[in-house]
Structures are given as structure tokens and as C-alpha cells.
């Protein structure tokens, strides 16, 4: 038997707020968070705010948590749901996730009430990164994909990197995260379907303008295949580096099960990578959309 002192005998259970963390150096943990609020922020999206143990706050922009969602219908929700972080609120020791009710996992999540426990595993995966010579970046996202990109604005602000955020949505009422990006000093451009400003042609013109103005040392996107294709093409033409956060169904979230595979193309060779472990943030030029 491995010698165990009484203190670490129960070290493996999910960690609760206020408990001594038995594994402060491990990058990932299973935590019991407490729901602070869980409300609609507009007609389509909800935001859940969670009180979390300290180690969960080490999450970086682009990383994700694996959420054990409650059942919406009495039947079991068997696997966790991966969700990228919307905001790390270190001052209040809180994490925020922005989501849309789609499948059974998010439907169950929407039923969480203030004070309830919510089991989360994370932080997981490779987040966004900034190269030293990037002075200005362009963030382009649509819908809930903007939730993933939002923490990037914070990372950029901390590194004195300028941000232009192009926020795409169906109509002006559901444009996400405007305040969050503006609050951190980003130049925000909204494009919507209702006046066709979100059309790829128009977004392409905006991006080309930013490249011409020297405002685009790197591209970042998430959530729309159309926008990924556009940024990839322009990035290749104008030699602009880029990153994309990708998604796929997952089981373990840690890299063991090889369920969350996506196709990538490196030097003309196609290959498979695990979104959970090699990603979810990848070099945009290597990503293959779906």
C-alpha cells in the first residue's frame, strides 16, 4: 500500500470551496461549484455564475471546463458537456459561462438554481496564446462563439495588445458581449443579419480594411464555419497568423478516450487531433472546418 496520511486519504473526491486543496499543483481538478445566478442575458443566451474553489480560477482564455449537467427530463445525462470559459472573476472567485439551450445538457444546465451544487472539471485544454510581436489582433465571432472569444479581450488588455472585435448576430438585440469587449478597450464592430452587414462579403471588406490599417497582426475566431473559412483564406493571402477554438463531442475531456477527434491539415497531410488535449484552440491554418 502507498502510505497515506489521514489528510490525503480522501484527497481524490471533488474539491469544495473552503477545503484544503490536496493537489494544488495539478493543472486540472474536479470541483463542486455553487450557483450564484443563472439567468437569460437576452432572448437567446443564458449566463451562469459560479462560486468556485481557488484552483478553478487558474483557467486561461480559450480553455474549457467539463460540466456535469443535471438532467432536464428525469433520464440520465451520461456524459459531461465541454464549455469554454466566458469570464474568470478572480476578485470574487467566480467563473462565468455563457450558453444557449440546445441539447439535453444545456437544457438541464438552464434549470440550475441559486445555491445549487454544480460539478465541474477543469481547466482543460490549450487556450489562446499571444505572440510577442502581435500589437493588434482581430476577434471575429458569431452567436455563442463569442463567449469563447470574450476572455481573449482580457488577455490582450493585460498584454497591451489592441483588439478589434467584430461581433456577428442575427439581430441587434442578440449581439453578445459588446459591453465586455468595450469595457476592456476593444474597438467593437457589430454586424447583423437584419441589415445584411453580417454577409461574408461585407465582413471580408471590414477585415481587409483592418489589414490595410495595420490592425490585424493575428486573427481569432470561434463558432462559425463560414467565418473560419473567411479568416483562413484572408490569413493565407495576407500572411496573417490566426487561431480558432474548435468543438466536438467529448467523453473524458482529458485526452484518454479519443472520441473528440477533428481533422487538421499540416504541410498538405491530413491528420486527426484531440480537441480536448491538443486544443480546443488551434492554429487556424491547420484547422479543417465542417
Amino acid at each position, binding site marked *: 500500500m*502507498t502510505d497515506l496520511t489521514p489528510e490525503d486519504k480522501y484527497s481524490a473526491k471533488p474539491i469544495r470551496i473552503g477545503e484544503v486543496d490536496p493537489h494544488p499543483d495539478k493543472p486540472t481538478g474536479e470541483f463542486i461549484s455553487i450557483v450564484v445566478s443563472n439567468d437569460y442575458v437576452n432572448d437567446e443566451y443564458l449566463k451562469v455564475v459560479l462560486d468556485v474553489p481557488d484552483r478553478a480560477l487558474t483557467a486561461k482564455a480559450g480553455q474549457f471546463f467539463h460540466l*456535469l449537467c443535471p438532467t432536464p427530463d428525469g433520464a*440520465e445525462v451520461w456524459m459531461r458537456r465541454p464549455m469554454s470559459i466566458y469570464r474568470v472573476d478572480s476578485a470574487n472567485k467566480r467563473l462565468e459561462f455563457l450558453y444557449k439551450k440546445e441539447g439535453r445538457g444545456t437544457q438541464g444546465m438552464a434549470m440550475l438554481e441559486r445555491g445549487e451544487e454544480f460539478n465541474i472539471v477543469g481547466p482543460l485544454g490549450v487556450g489562446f496564446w499571444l505572440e510577442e510581436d502581435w500589437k493588434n489582433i482581430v476577434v471575429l465571432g458569431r452567436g455563442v462563439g463569442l463567449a469563447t472569444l470574450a476572455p481573449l479581450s482580457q488577455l490582450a488588455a493585460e498584454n497591451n495588445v489592441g483588439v478589434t472585435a467584430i461581433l456577428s448576430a442575427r439581430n441587434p438585440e442578440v449581439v453578445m458581449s459588446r459591453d465586455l469587449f468595450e469595457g476592456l478597450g476593444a474597438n467593437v464592430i457589430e454586424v447583423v443579419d437584419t441589415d445584411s452587414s453580417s454577409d461574408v462579403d461585407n465582413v471580408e471588406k471590414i477585415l481587409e480594411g483592418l489589414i490595410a490599417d495595420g490592425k490585424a497582426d493575428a486573427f481569432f475566431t470561434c463558432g462559425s464555419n463560414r467565418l473560419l473559412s473567411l479568416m483562413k483564406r484572408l490569413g493565407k493571402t495576407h500572411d496573417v497568423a490566426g487561431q480558432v477554438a474548435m468543438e466536438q463531442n467529448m467523453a473524458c475531456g*482529458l485526452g484518454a*478516450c479519443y472520441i473528440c477527434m477533428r481533422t487538421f491539415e499540416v504541410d498538405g497531410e491530413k491528420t486527426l487531433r484531440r480537441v480536448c488535449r491538443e486544443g480546443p484552440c488551434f492554429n487556424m491554418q491547420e484547422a479543417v472546418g465542417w
Partner: protein
Amino acid sequence: MVDLSVKIGDITLQNPIMPASGAFSWDYGDVIDLNRLGGLVAKTICREPRLGNPTPRMAETEAGIIQSIGLPGKGIDYFLENIVPEYNKWEPPLIVSVSADTAEDFAAMTRDLTVDGVDVIEVNISCPTKAPSGGNFAMHSEHTKEVMDGIRAATDKPVWAKLSPNAGDIVSIAVAAEEAGADALVLCNTFLSLKIRTDNFRPALGNKFGGLVSPALKPIVMRMVYQVAQECSIPVIGIGGVTKAEDVVEYMLAGASGVGIGYAGFRNPTTLTTIIDDLDEWCDERGIKEISELIGAVRDDDIEWDPLVAASQGV
């Protein structure tokens, strides 16, 4: 304090808790202390690099997930050079799972894996999405005997045979594996399954068929472990639906010497070590000094078979 150690042939495990092959990697060391596990079980390795099956590789059903991964990996050379050393950074014995399409290659791979750093060779002769004579040898006792004979001749390492729940009569397969010289029997691989989507009429998995992974498997595998343990004298390892310490106790009562855990570790990465803690406590509370006392300790020799008497007794 209870002694949780169990003997599987010549190998002693510090406790009966192991991950199931395919549901584990050293990546779990990001969350838990792997040195606490009874054994480390690597993902099944094949000779050549393999991409695995088309996605989607998992689908949820009412009663668990079905999954079809397709044994992706970088081949045996990479495995020996890079993955074995990665596992050897930890203390528990390394159980290496291996698969091949022919009996000859199974024997050859077993020979290639007979190296320092590999403690046990688990032969995955039961991959559910392979044909009976092309990988899924454990569907028939004669195929099992043939492949196990070659494997036994190829190595002195402990060999554990992983069997299939999809075989008609798993006891005859188990007996064939034991007669061919297996050191232990691992029951069992996943249950061949199918899910069809009603929104687009397509199979939910890229590979069409998959294996069911679920707590629902526990009573079925429990029955198989019990039946096999009655007929075979080598140790049995039970895999199917273990989510808590009492499940381990139940498998041991049925005749298992250890368990493998898959699904529960996906759902809660701290499950494996939590179960070890709880098992320790469960035994202490009952004054059990050695957990090996539980192996095959099911009390079924005094069952009342007279229904009139049985129905007049309590439950």
C-alpha cells in the same frame, strides 16, 4: 486498517481498482495521483499506426453511451519507445493491452511486448467491431484456443485474456483461454450495439456499430463473472458498470479478484481513487482485515429452493 492487496497470478496489486483499457491514459495524472491505483492499463496497441474509426465516435442512449473508437494509436514501435516510459514514471504495474488481426501476429506482438517495463500483457481478443476470426477471436472457443496457444508460447509475462460478452457461451470461451494457459480472465469488453437517429435515419456512430458502456452492464457481467469463476480456477477481473465501492465488493463476491473501471472515470475523473478510499472504509467498518476474503464469498450454498418456504421467509 484493511489490506486491500490482491494477487492476480504472480502479480500482486496494492488494491483491486484498475482503469479499463481504452478509458484511461497517464493524462489522468493531471487530476488524480496515479500511484494509488492497483494497476495502470494502457490503451490497446496494434502493430501499425491507426487513425481509428470515423467520427462520431460516441452517442448517448437512454441507458448509457455507445462508442466506437477503432483502436487508434501510433503503432508498437512508438508505443515501446514513448508510451511505456511515460507509464513507468508511475509506480503501479503496467498492463499493456494488445490487439492483432491474426493469431500469428498476436503471438509476434506478445513477443515484442515482452520487455522490461511491461508487467502484464492483456490480450484484447474481443474487440467488438472485429470479425470472429479477424480480431474478435473470443466469439468462439476454437478461435480462442488457437490464438491463446500462440500467445502463451510467445511470452513468460503474465497474460490476461479479455473476453467478449457477445459470445454465445462465455464460459466455454473462458475455459478455452484457461486451458491455453491464460493467467487471468478479463470480463469483459463492450456489448455490440446500434443507435439509429430518427431525425435523419442514419446510424448515430460513424462506424455504425459501437460498444455499449453503462452501469446497466453490471448485473449482466456480474452473472458472467459468477459463472466463469465457478468453472475456472484462474483469477477473474470484472469490468462493467462499476461506479462505487459496493460495486467492487459485489464483483468480488461473485468471484472477481479485481475490477476495471471505464465509464465512471469519464464522468468523474476522481472516481478511481474515491472508490479506493471508500472500499477501505467499507472494509474497516465491517472488520474485514483482508479484502481478498471477499473473493467468491457470495453466500448461495443455502438458498431455499422451495417456493412455499422461501415466500414464508423474510427478504
